[in-house]
């Protein structure tokens, strides 16, 4: 019999239907994945299993854990199950730990709250568990606080808390989405190892098909609160009976058609740029040590060239971006656009700034919710000495909106009326409206679902062909950069370790770090050519 058996589960929050007849089973020692886009109901399925649904939720159906229907259990009974029989790991390790308690106290709490052992033994066990998740006691004593650890290390602490009492079921909700690829690979390996060693069941929630294909035994594809396709992972990915599964899969490996670059004279020139930040003093009156965020970086971007900048968090790519945009001065080196310095006499150079625009990562946070689209996308006009007015302004708005695939009528609406993908189109329209020489895309598609991401990448390729754009595309994800750049720079610890044409870099990476990045990124299996291939024995 399966350990967890969800039957015909339906949820509604204040009358809005969230899940519609979801059924799935997970056996011990098995990894089951739930995948789908945001809003498909995968996280709600997990929270229903944990009994941690928001107020006002009405549930029907059954969630049988080890034969008991958990929907009928009281809150104290559920508290007893949580942490002891069912553990959970969350998406955002940076905020999932209490900042004012030591990691030891937080891991021990799992044991103590269930009165599983005496405090002395709990401390012993906490050491063991932290060691087991790869935080050895000599480097990570129990007295450490979360802010002293990196994102990957914090996620290990969260996993340690979840597995401290050897639960029979572990639920991991996007456990690696916020992490760099190399860290992601380590955390996924850790989860696989724990499942194998403890015979735990793992419910893995992820939007990333590549992660799933690598690790899950069974796969459930969710859409609009329903499971549209389910089965052994290899079989589902080979057959893809439901068109939605196929859409997801194709979007995940989408390659935009960029067209050839019309590379000409250099536009942006970065020469020997360095940027240091002071760190906290180590001793009371000692000198402040400096952190070299960017070390002696040089490169050119030619007019019409599409360049990618890839690196993990903390590698200096954001610092470099701020310097290029003239938001911060540099300590040494020179950045010029079309021959003019971006920073002059202690001030950003406004004539240069109006030739650059930027598109940010978060389509939700980067717009003022009180303004209409027409005002939002004409904001860059204030940079111009003589901005277009009246009819010319309206024409410019309409042109920009049409260029990004929206309608001129959308100018009168407010930003909340648009989805994440549409908002990112509006952000691109805002960048295009003053016809800048250079656009910086700062993780511009990282927050989007795969299908929306594919559309935005296509849009960028279209615009690039139509307008001959020059852009710098910054991302932590190598695979995204592949289809929409002519050249890729790989950055590590403040230095550019590899700078080559995209095609060359992906066929034969030179630098060991680039190879590490590529190997760490989960790969989708090849697209099935034959639909009627023999089914695997699973």
């Amino acid at each position, binding site marked *: 019999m399966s350990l967890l058996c969800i039957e015909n589960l339906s949820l509604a929050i204040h009358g809005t239907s969230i899940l519609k007849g979801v059924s799935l089973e997970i056996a011990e020692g098995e990894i089951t994945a739930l995948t789908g886009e945001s809003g498909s109901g995968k996280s709600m399925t997990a929270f229903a299993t944990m009994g941690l649904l928001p107020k006002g939720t009405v549930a029907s159906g059954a969630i049988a854990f080890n034969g008991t229907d958990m929907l009928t259990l009281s809150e104290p009974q559920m508290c007893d199950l949580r942490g002891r029989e069912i553990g959970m790991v969350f998406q955002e390790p940076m905020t999932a730990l209490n900042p004012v308690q030591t990691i030891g106290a937080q891991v021990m709490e799992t044991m103590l*709250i269930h009165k599983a052992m005496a405090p002395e033994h709990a401390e012993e066990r906490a050491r063991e568990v932290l060691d087991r998740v790869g935080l050895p006691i000599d480097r990570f004593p129990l007295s450490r*606080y979360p802010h002293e650890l990196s994102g990957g290390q914090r996620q290990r602490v969260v996993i340690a808390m979840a597995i401290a009492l050897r639960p029979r079921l572990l639920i991991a909700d996007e456990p690696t989405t916020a992490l760099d690829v190399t860290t992601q690979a380590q955390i996924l390996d850790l989860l696989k190892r724990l499942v194998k060693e403890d015979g735990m069941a793992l419910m893995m929630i992820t939007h990333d098909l590549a992660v799933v294909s690598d690790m899950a035994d069974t796969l459930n594809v969710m859409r609009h609160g329903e499971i549209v396709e389910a089965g052994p992972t290899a079989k589902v990915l080979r057959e893809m009976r439901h068109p939605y599964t196929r859409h997801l899969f194709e979007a995940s490996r989408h390659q935009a058609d960029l067209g050839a670059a019309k590379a000409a004279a250099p536009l942006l020139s970065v020469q020997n740029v360095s940027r240091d930040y002071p760190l906290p003093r180590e001793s009371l009156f000692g000198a402040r040590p400096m952190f070299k965020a960017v070390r002696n970086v040089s490169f050119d971007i030619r007019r019409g060239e599409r360049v990618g900048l890839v690196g993990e968090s903390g590698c200096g790519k954001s610092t470099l971006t701020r310097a290029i945009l003239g938001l911060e001065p540099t300590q040494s080196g020179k950045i010029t656009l079309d021959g003019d310095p971006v920073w002059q006499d202690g001030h950003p150079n406004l004539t240069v700034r109006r030739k650059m625009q930027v598109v940010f990562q978060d389509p939700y946070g980067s717009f003022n919710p009180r303004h209409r689209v027409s005002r939002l996308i004409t904001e860059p006009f204030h940079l111009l000495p003589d901005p277009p007015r009246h009819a010319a302004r309206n024409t410019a708005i309409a042109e920009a909106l049409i260029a990004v695939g929206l309608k001129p009528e959308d100018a009168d609406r407010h930003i909340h009326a648009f989805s994440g993908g549409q908002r990112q189109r509006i952000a691109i329209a805002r960048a295009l409206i003053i016809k800048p020489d250079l656009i910086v895309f700062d993780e511009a598609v990282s927050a989007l679902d795969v299908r929306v991401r594919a559309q935005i990448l296509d849009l960028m390729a279209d615009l690039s062909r139509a307008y001959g754009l020059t852009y710098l595309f910054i991302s932590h994800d190598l695979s995204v950069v592949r289809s929409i750049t002519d050249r890729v720079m790989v950055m590590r610890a403040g230095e550019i370790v590899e700078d080559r044409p995209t095609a060359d870099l992906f066929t034969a990476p030179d630098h060991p770090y680039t190879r590490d990045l590529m190997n760490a990124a989960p790969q989708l299996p090849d697209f099935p050519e034959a639909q009627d291939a023999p089914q695997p024995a699973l």
Partner: protein
Amino acid sequence: MLGYIVKRLISLAMSLIVASVVIFGVVEVAPGDPASFMLGINAQPDTVAALRTELGLDQSKLDRYLSWVGGMLTGDFGTSYTYRTPVAQMIADRMWVSLPLALYALTLSTLIAFPAGIFAAARRGEPGDLAVTGATQLGVAIPNFWFAMMLVLIFAIQLRWFSAGGFPGWDGGFWAGMKALTLPAIALALPQAAILTRVMRSSLLDILGEDFMRTARAKGLSARQALWRHGLRNALIPVLTIIGLQFAFLLAGAIIIEQVFFLPGLGRLIFQAITQRDLIVVESVVMLLVFAVIMVNFLVDLAYAVVDPRLRTRV
């Protein structure tokens, strides 16, 4: 942690120096003659001249500043012009009323606000929360002198549990002194408690939405356990800030309540000194209050570091 304390101490000393220069500058160096100001427009020229000598106004400004600061450091605050008694003694007498009153009121307001704020936050949107929020609206809106008069009417005149005013001094025993301060402390504490309750409630509600609260629930903590073990300490930072501000206010801002209850406190002293143009007293009391505010802020800073380990390592 040691580095943090030293940094705070340096900032404390700097603030005190700046404050003393500003207070000295405003009172002594500003246009007009302090002596003729203190004596009023009808004063005889020889009286003004005598006072000038007495105040040391014939010395250079730097000398006067240094002797003023030096005097305060050794406990010599000068002599009151109106009362002809040492200012240090006057302040010390009043301090024995104002400091206990402020601490008493602060303790009461904290004792009311913490449970009320936690109660309301744990029941967001429910009747209990609405009742507490409504009560805090009322507490902020009611003028405290009116509330003080109601307290006198009910508990002193009707029920005769407390005296209507005055302070017997601490010589009559601790409890007699506390009893005399009870009604004023309640009158002072009520609006402070209302404000503190609202801060506590909103701060806790912010924390309850944090990811780590969900993590705590996933470990098996009940909603109540999660609130007490993980929510409260994280919610304390804004609450501590308000407590620090309130203490500084209570120490000197109790003028009206001191008047209602005929209490010989610092508020009344400074009020009288201003009406009598006794600049020496004003200067000293203001400096003392500035010192108290800066000290309280220093203690609040230390409390932050105790509550939040992230601050201990930050520069």
